[in-house]
């Protein structure tokens, strides 16, 4: 089977993730959409690894999972502090800094 289908699926997932970031106001959901984009990349990596018959892509996928976990730690910490001082996680309300 051609890997194109998998790559297309990965691209679609990536686009859905990007759309989620653009459309959702809730910081946590926006962040989850970014995780979806990372996973789309993972899918592309393992597909390519399979297609080329080497392990590089699979190794990358593991690293990306670890990075994603680390990102969650930092991200949730930041969102938490914002929530504590503003009682809201809407990204549209944090717009004091502009112009």
């Amino acid at each position, binding site marked *: 089977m051609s890997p194109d289908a998998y790559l297309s699926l990965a691209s679609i997932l990536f686009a859905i993730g990007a759309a989620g970031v653009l459309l959702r106001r809730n910081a946590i959901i926006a962040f989850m959409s970014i995780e979806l984009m990372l996973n789309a990349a993972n899918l592309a990596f393992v597909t390519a690894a399979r*297609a*080329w018959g080497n392990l590089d892509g699979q190794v990358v996928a593991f690293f990306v999972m670890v990075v994603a976990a680390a990102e969650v730690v930092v991200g949730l910490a930041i969102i938490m502090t914002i929530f504590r001082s503003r009682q809201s996680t809407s990204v549209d309300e944090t717009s004091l800094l502009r112009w």
Partner: protein
Amino acid sequence: MTPISVVDIDYVALAPVIIVLVAAVIGVLLEAFLPEAARRSGQLLLTGSAVALAFLTVLIVAASRPFGPIAGGSLMLDGPGLFLQGLILLTSGTAILIMADRRVDPGGDAFAGRVSTLPGGEEEREVSRRGLMQTEVWPLMLFCIGGLLLFVTSNDLLTLFIALEILSLPLYLLVGMARRRRLLSQEAALKYFLMGALASAILLFGSALAYAYAGTIEFAGIAERISERTTANTLVIAAVALILVGLLFKIGAVPFGQWVPDVYQGAPTPVTGFMAAAVKVAAVGALLRVLYVPFGGMRWEWEPVLWIVASLTMLIGSLVALAQSDIKRMLAYSSIANAGFILIGVAAADQVGLSSVLFYLLAYSVATLAAFGIVTMVRVPTGEATSLEQWAGIGRRSPLLATAFSLILLSFAGIPLTAGFIAKFGVFTAAITAGALPLVIVGIVASAIAAALYVRIIVRMYFTDPVSASAGVASPSPLTVAGVGLGVALTVILGVFPQPVLNLVEQTSIFVR
């Protein structure tokens, strides 16, 4: 059992990175085990000596080690990489000096005593009454510096991504830790985090496509595969586009750098200086390597993109900077404009271009750090005086500070006998040699606009009478004086005697593939 082959690792060549990262881990341990009273001095000692030692090691490595791939091919030891590592350590060290200052702010250093407290709450007052100071920033800094060092030497897509994350994650946190105006600081952190995560996802997806195209994540392998092609493949074009965008985000190029003004304004000023200097240096370094090494064969594809992005960045950065009334925001736009000038040199895509970019980065980063260092000193009772109006008449009350700031602004404006002039001249010349005359004309126009901006501030400092809410100048500790003094001194020295450094960048400006 059959014996396994072990990757031969040159630990000396890796030493700068190892020193910094090990020190970061030790720093985390110090947080846990050192008594509170000794933490700050312990952390400062550790951080300072780690950076200094790493800098010395870079010099030793540069003098003694043969260029080539190290750490099993994940990293590349070559001239530009070493130069940038040295520059990152130099600017980080300067930033650390400014960060460590606790005399300009009567409340302590630039960071919130305890980040978890509510802004304006009872607990926060209690913390500031007890004069608590946060020391976690120092291990975070070290992790970030370690990431920067890896970023400019990474030799495959995985290392590039991991290094990007190692440098970004601590930075997101550092941005949110300001002692004053904490709501703004937290907002900046959130924005930076969301945008940064999005950009790294884009970069990662681009990497995945590049891997799918080439079957390898190593830069040399990708370059080889690209050179074999007969027609361009959609996969690799998409990969270049996405990786380019991911890196241009970090540099702050228009239209990918909209986060820059907000984040620079909200972050604690020493951190802003660090971001504008060291992080930008590393981002440009990584961009250079990615464009020249794996995707050097696709120069005709990415060059037009860089032309347009560079023009937009220079013009919009300079124009919007004119309309700013906040000094940090103004400097943020000025750093965007400078990113545009740097991209002119990147677009030249040859050795002359590379060396001109390296020189520009040096000139720009030391000046920028000094500028933000000066911003920390100009204060009103509630914090830094960031409104430009409050800078009126500073020249009268504090001639030395105003002279230093004027020198830096003149350098940004590209006035001769400052480093900025030589730097601009270098990138313009490189671009002309590479046939990019239109880009240079745009650059000259943009620098004319930007010059008006900088002169406006000089006029404000010298020729305007102070208003009632005008700022005073805090007497800084020797740390800040050293940091700012270094920046100002280099700005002048590089303008008058640039030749040794020009020779250096010319010798170092060859990427090993």
